């Protein structure tokens, strides 16, 4: 057998990519400057572009986290994450899904235990921003259902709807750091749940009352209204079903309500 052609063995992308996000690697030997000039600084332009642009991408997704940590801290944390978990999709708004979990393990952030949940709300905010458009369920829809069968109603979740549950005050911290308003001291120790929706153009993050997250998560999972309310009451005796229903309609969390038994017919 003939030996394979040399070009079939050479992989310029492997050689070039090998050192792009590893600062300890040497400049790949496949590249050169013109007329025998060196390529160290030249290759570093690509290195800088890759890392700096991905840090920018994370900063654009997680502005509240950056505001809390400061730019230098954020850049160092983002750089560590990029080296551990570079993007796999060319759609940068999909990047950073693993960043909240990374923050949880990042030792320099251990003094900020609410930072990861704040990041989770920011990630849900961006998912809601890019989610498919859909008309939310109108308030009148429940009134037109037979009242004796309300407990059997099932709901179709809106594409933008998300819930983030935090054992700390991530919703308040998120809200305080997504606008420029000066806030007083925050008691970070109160558990808070967030409902993220986008009924039309604007993403809205709401702080759910007690039991609200269990209630909505049950509805999103397809359980009928009566069962979801029972689960919410189990989780929180102060759960108020009337205000929970009014709140989810106002937020635009669902697009349709159906009687479960109609689905199978």
């Amino acid at each position, binding site marked *: 057998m003939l030996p394979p052609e040399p*070009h*079939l063995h*050479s*992989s*310029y*992308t*492997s050689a*070039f*990519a090998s050192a*792009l*996000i590893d600062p300890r690697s040497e400049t790949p*030997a*496949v*590249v*050169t*400057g*013109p*007329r025998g*000039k*060196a*390529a*160290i*600084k*030249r*290759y570093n*332009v*690509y290195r800088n*572009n*890759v890392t700096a*642009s*991905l840090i920018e*991408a994370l900063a654009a997704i997680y502005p509240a986290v950056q505001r809390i940590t400061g730019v230098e801290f954020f850049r160092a944390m983002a750089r560590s994450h990029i080296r551990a978990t*570079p*993007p*796999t*999709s*060319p*759609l*940068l*708004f999909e990047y950073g899904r693993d960043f909240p979990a990374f923050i949880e393990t990042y030792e320099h952030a251990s003094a900020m235990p609410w930072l990861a949940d704040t990041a989770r709300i920011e990630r849900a905010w961006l998912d*809601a*921003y*890019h*989610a*498919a*458009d*859909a008309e939310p369920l109108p308030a009148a829809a429940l009134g037109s259902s037979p009242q004796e069968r309300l407990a059997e109603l099932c709901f179709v979740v809106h*594409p*933008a709807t998300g819930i983030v549950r935090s054992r700390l005050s991530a919703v308040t911290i998120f809200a305080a750091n997504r606008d420029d308003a000066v806030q007083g001291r925050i008691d970070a120790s109160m558990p808070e749940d967030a409902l993220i929706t*986008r009924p*039309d*153009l604007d993403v809205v993050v709401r702080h759910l009352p007690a039991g609200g997250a269990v209630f909505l998560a049950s509805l999103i999972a397809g359980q009928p209204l009566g069962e979801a309310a029972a689960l919410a009451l189990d989780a929180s005796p102060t759960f108020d079903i009337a205000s929970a229903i009014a709140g989810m309609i106002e937020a635009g969390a669902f697009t349709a309500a159906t009687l479960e038994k109609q689905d199978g017919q």
Partner: protein
Amino acid sequence: MNAATKPAACAAIPLRFPALPIGGLAGTSFKHQHLAEIRADGGGRGFFEVHAENYMGAGGPPHRALETLRRDFPISLHGVCMSIGGERPLDRTHLARFQHLVERYEPALVSEHLAWSTHDTTYFNDLLPLPYTEATLRRVCDHIDQFQEAIRRPILLENPSTYVAFRESTMSETDFIRSVSQRTGCGLLLDVNNVFVSATNHGFSALDYLSDFPLADVGEIHLAGHAEQSDDEGELLLIDSHNGPVADAVWKLFEIVVSRCGPVPTLVEWDSNIPDWPILKAEAAAAQAILDRSHGIAEARHAAA
């Protein structure tokens, strides 16, 4: 955005946009923060270019803004991560997303880069260079064939700005690009700033490059600002940064290109340190004046003949 801009049933009814001509126009990169002022200007002359990937989400404000813009202006759809110059097969999911955008927005122009950005499973978010050899030429042509079949129309391929060369290259960039255009039937996007940046970085003459470039195939021109650094020998290294106004030398090259290939649609790119709309609009107006002058000269020649 006010309620009047909201389409009645955006998901259900396929949108149809006017077939607005783009010939002879200057345009700018579209940035969402400029939309209100662009609309307040009242549908002036020009076009807008968007990075295709930014509109590959399912819905939300990006699509609403682009729909609004597309009703009044021709759009150029500019891909930045198809990885045409890479070694692995094109990403079919990404091709399908791109095809969907072309169908949805009916852009006047569609373009991509002679570069790669993905290796194995990692997306590097940069336009990375490739060697110019018979093997890479064949692969790039295969990728462009596949791309053009997927979207059912020719693309414009953009010449890169580069900082390094590959030892294994066996042909010049202009020969490579000419062969790609001949074999695939694609048009070319001539980025004049990239020519100037690469000429400086590699020590060749930008005018010689333009003389070798197949100008007859150019369907769009890009202009942009660049930044200055230095190489290992302490000599000037230009960075294709898109973060400031177009340099004087690039304007001069642009005038030369337009004198040779006529008033080709021309885009001013500005992607970081984005200025207020009036500044970006003034850069486009400067390009438009050069295009109009060239058009006037061509008309006068035609009348005299």
